[in-house]
């Protein structure tokens, strides 16, 4: 990780028609990809546009390292009139590069994103996925140091997303460009992101390394956005078993005698949100005293999602489809649960 970020946001405040975006601190570094997550209207696109210097700030600043070029790929990229090649050359023409260099760089960028065969096509005739690739090639042709992507997987089918993710990953690794990517597709975000920034209502709710944010979201809204689908309200209690009193964590009562332990320490008597990722719930069948019953199970052939009734609480868990329990578990089955204390995350109830 380089010492100076390629692009740094400091105390940014931006007001547009009653909406205010506040981002105290966000760095984009060479070779790192930051996924910006958030619900609709949270200010994700506004943040990208502010980072691209396209919107006036109310206060704060966006600083770039010396000689740092920024390219933004919009959510709805425009195909300007003319051929695909002309479109890709446009930003190079803006930089007043000589014609031969424009040609070479545009061609290399089109190769990179698999649209070189379409170079002489009228850009107006491209499909959604092709236009998306054109926009990426157009951005990469300028060899930017910072690449800002606004919903790059919009309008793509599952195969297209996968292919584009792989292409992007390869290009990011090859070029060492700093990336910020806005997306509502958590899966693609996780495939590409080293870091995650979460925006809620125009405010930066959390920013950190990907796995830290996935395991320890700052609050229930962030937890939902990053796929921590099991969320309950509970109260931290004194551990009932004397032998466990030296356990360096907390016991939380989720209601009606249902208890869960967490490795995180919170003083007894405090109300907390309890979060558990579905993939961290282990199921076993055939034990003496089962905890829960399966209320429904659905599978897409790759991943199965089971909803369990756990003493009246709804618990969601993921299984690999077609293997082990993912193959045999049925509605109405009784199961025993194992949730490790270190996989049980506590968040303040505000």
């Amino acid at each position: 990780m380089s010492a100076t970020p390629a692009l740094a946001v400091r105390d940014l405040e931006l007001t547009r028609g009653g909406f205010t975006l506040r981002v105290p601190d966000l760095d984009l570094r060479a070779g790192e990809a930051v996924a910006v997550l958030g619900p609709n209207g949270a200010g994700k696109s506004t943040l990208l546009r502010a980072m691209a210097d396209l919107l006036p700030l109310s206060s704060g600043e966006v600083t770039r390292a010396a000689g740092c070029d920024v390219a933004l790929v919009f959510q709805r990229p425009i195909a300007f009139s003319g051929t695909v090649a002309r479109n890709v050359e446009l930003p190079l023409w803006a930089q007043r590069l000589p014609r031969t260099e424009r040609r070479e760089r545009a061609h290399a960028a089109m190769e990179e994103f698999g649209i070189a065969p379409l170079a002489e096509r009228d850009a107006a005739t491209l499909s959604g996925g092709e236009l998306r690739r054109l926009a990426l090639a157009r951005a990469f042709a300028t060899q930017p140091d910072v690449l800002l992507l606004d919903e790059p997987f919009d309008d793509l089918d599952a195969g297209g997303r996968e292919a584009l993710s792989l292409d992007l990953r390869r290009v990011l690794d090859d070029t060492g460009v700093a990336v910020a990517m806005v997306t509502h597709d958590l899966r693609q975000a996780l495939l590409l992101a080293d870091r995650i920034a979460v925006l809620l209502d125009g405010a930066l709710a959390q920013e950190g390394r990907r796995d830290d944010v996935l395991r320890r979201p700052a609050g229930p809204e962030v937890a939902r956005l990053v796929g921590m689908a099991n969320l309950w309200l509970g109260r931290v209690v004194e551990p009932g078993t004397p032998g466990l009193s030296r356990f360096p964590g907390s016991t939380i009562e989720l209601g009606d005698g249902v208890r869960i332990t967490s490795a995180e320490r919170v003083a007894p008597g405090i109300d907390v949100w309890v979060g558990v990722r579905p993939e961290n719930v282990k199921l076993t069948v055939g034990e003496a005293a089962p905890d829960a019953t399966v209320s429904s199970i659905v599978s897409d052939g790759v991943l199965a999602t089971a909803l369990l009734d756990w003493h009246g609480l709804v618990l969601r868990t993921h299984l690999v489809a077609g293997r082990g329990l993912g193959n045999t578990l049925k509605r109405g089955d009784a199961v025993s649960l194992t949730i490790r204390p270190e996989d049980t995350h506590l968040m303040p109830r505000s």
Partner: protein
Amino acid sequence: MNELLEVALRTLAVSGAALVFAVAIGLPIGFVLGRYRFFGRGLLVALANSGMGLPPVVVGLAVALLLWRSGPLGELRLMYTPRAMVLAQLVIALPLIIGITLASVGQLPEDFHLQVRAMGLRRGRAAWVLVREIRLGLLAAVIVALGGILSEVGAVMMVGGNLEGQTRVLTTGILTYVQMGRYEDALALAALLLGLTFVLAGTLTAIQQARRA
């Protein structure tokens, strides 16, 4: 026949000059009205839109009042000159150019100007990209405006006076020859005027269809 040719050439010169001025003034105004939101914009757009249907004879009267010897611009002594006709036709063509330009700019995709800026395009190059994107609208504006001023008779009659050898154009010429009973000459001028109109319409159609193909 020389006389007819002279009238035809004068028509082209007067209307052509009016068109050039209308485009030079109207394009930037249309860009600004189509692109930016500011106080008073709505009024200006409404003015441009209603101006697209101005009766030429009323424009002629207004310009004549300005240019009349006792009028505010009377000192310029433009009345009954080709320059006065250019001025009157400019007033007719300007709202057409402004109105169609601003509509074309308004129909650009969301974020068009931001995306142009994000690519690093500024000033002249940004304007060139914009003109390319709205060129069909601009072409339509030019052809509609030229068609309108070539075929109008009220304004040129009012401020030009239809003076033989000085301010007679195709439309006023047709009227005069009919009144004089010179039907063959009138028909010849009418054929010229129709021919011009067809050439204009044909050019527009050809360009539109080439785009489709």
